[in-house]
């Protein structure tokens, strides 16, 4: 009970509010961009299109996590605790897709 630590709030309330709304606009624009890209690239079927969408999704995720979920203001170590395990998921995704591709191939022949 000796010393209670509160979260370190570097931002003043007005500033914080502004930041929240800015993030909201960014997310809104990104969603619109998503849809726009979807229709612009409707006839294409390249893997880069998928990469583009995943990238846009990751950008949105970054904004949600860093501002809405306050990750930007937490210790870096907490951020790494949460982010680093995602590498396992990346491995799982890579593996599942490779494996699914192999399954697709072996079913063809």
């Amino acid at each position: 009970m000796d010393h209670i630590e509160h979260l370190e709030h570097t931002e003043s309330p007005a500033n914080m509010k502004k930041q929240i709304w800015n993030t909201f606009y960014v997310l809104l624009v990104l969603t619109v961009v998503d849809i726009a890209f979807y229709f612009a690239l409707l006839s294409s079927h390249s893997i880069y299109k998928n990469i583009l969408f995943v990238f846009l999704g990751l950008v949105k995720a970054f904004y949600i996590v860093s501002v809405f979920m306050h990750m930007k203001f937490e210790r870096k170590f907490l951020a790494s605790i949460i982010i680093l395990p995602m590498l396992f998921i990346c491995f799982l995704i890579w593996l599942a897709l490779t494996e699914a591709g192999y399954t697709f191939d072996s079913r063809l022949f």
Partner: protein
Amino acid sequence: MSAAAIHSDDQHHGDHGHHKETFISKYIFSMDHKMISKQFLITGIIMGTIGMLMSLIFRLQLAYPETSFPIFETILGEWGKGGKIDPNFYLALITIHGTIMVFFVLTAGLSGTFSNLLIPLQVGARDMASPFLNMLSYWFFFTSSVLMLSSLFVQGGPASAGWTIYPPLSALPKAIPGSGTGMTLWLVSMIVFIVSSLLGSINYVATVINMRTKGMKMTRMPLTIWAFLFTAILGILSFPVLFGGSLLLVFDRSFGTSFYLNEIPADLAGGIERVGGSPILFQHLFWFLGHPEVYIILLPALGITSEVIATNARKPIFGYRAMIGSIMAIALLSFIVWGHHMFITGMNPFLGSVFMLGTLIIAVPSAVKTFNYLGTLWKGNLRLNPQMMFAIGLVSFFISGGLTGIFLGNAALDINLHDTYFVVAHFHLVMGSAAIFGMICGIYHWFPKMFGRMMNESLGQIHFWLTIISAYCVFFPMHFMGLAGVPRRYYAFTAYDQFNVFVDMNKFITYAAFVGGIAQFIFLFNFFYSMFKGKKAVQNPWESNTMEWTTPVKHLHGNWPGEIPHVYRWPYDYSVPGHDKDYIPQTTPDFGQTDPLTEAKVVPAEDRKKVPTLEKEEAVLFSLAKRWLGFA
């Protein structure tokens, strides 16, 4: 700062010791971590006994495939008609034996018991971060055990697709009787179990990170805590994937989807033709849990062993940082090697190579651990009490079973060894026997802390020698059966002339298993007898350094009657030269080191050498990680 202090108004923290405890709040819905750990332990022991008796039943079948035992008809009824076990029930037995042993005994019974008991006591906390969730964790576990056992009594029998429940066998009720209600109960029980495990693990991690007492730096934590921390992390990251996988399997079974099924005609699959899925998908999702699960089982056992060996060798654990590093490396690598269970399942051979590489790399941190144990024993002053003997036995099993892992991790060799008795021998030695030894070792060591009484030493020693001899007699010959191509999960080998040479061996294994089973009854007798009638324990019976031995023998809600003692040193100050006693508890201040928080400035030179004194703990972690993961 005490994190809990913020929440002084939180129900379960504020009112410790203020209200009178009823029987129910003290013994049944207890929120005290010590009571919860006892509940975990006793449930685990009961489940373990059931699992062991099952193994004896099917060992009898394997030794005497042609003989009928009328006793089976008496105890098994429908499943033991004419004194012979039904082949379907044989499969059910091995399935439930595997499930119970892996999840209910070695996951919940081992890590649940000792994480609960030791984490708050060894890091110096009043209780878990959230005692309420902790209680829920136990009761979810209890519910799931009951569900699992109740599946023994349903129509069609319990799940019988092996503990790995590969679909389509587990997804098509027509394929095997056990894939009916029994399988559904298995899945429900497992989902409840996953919830329990998550609640527990989240609590453990939060407690270790946030609730340590003053001076208990990360680098001063006993290796048990390190092991429990990483076990909990493994559980948090891997169990959800099984949850997702089981969810999809539930849908495949009950709602006509086909995530794991392809080209299954309608008449086999409940009237709906199943196309479009892949059984391999389930295997990936399952083993994404399944392999970390092996280390969820093994790491706590290794942590307990580290503590017991150091205490009873009266010598600091050799290479404390290397031990932490290898725990971290094992934990990390365990997530990227699960495919070695699947080399010949029709997986992409390229991925086979990737997984083979990762698997064999795990041998390096494991080897480091083994050699560090040997280094700790060297020139020690070994007190060969039962827990020390079990710890030594664990190291022996860890070596024997670990080395055969090098065969199985090799994709090429796995072609001929996959699913043979070689595999059975391997995992029973390295994660069955070794982890059970870790658990028993922990029970002997912390029994005085849990129950305030001592266990009988002589019975413990007899238990040890019978167990290690019988375990080796059971599992060592199995390697040779595996090398001769004898497949596992066979009800009998009578259909194969070439396996006739192993008839005698099978009988021998069964006798050894019975000896082992009897030895466990000695232990059970010792355990329950000592609980009530054992010698009264003194406060620090093993002259150990760690913090749990500074709490009073009689349990106290909140653990320490006064202020929580501060920690001034690492936990392995045994036989420090220049001290008259051969142990210095962590709570003993050093010369010139009164305040642990400012100690970085006044720490004596010798202490600085032992314990890294980087300013931030994360820096230590990163440097360790960098050093040890450089191999990956």
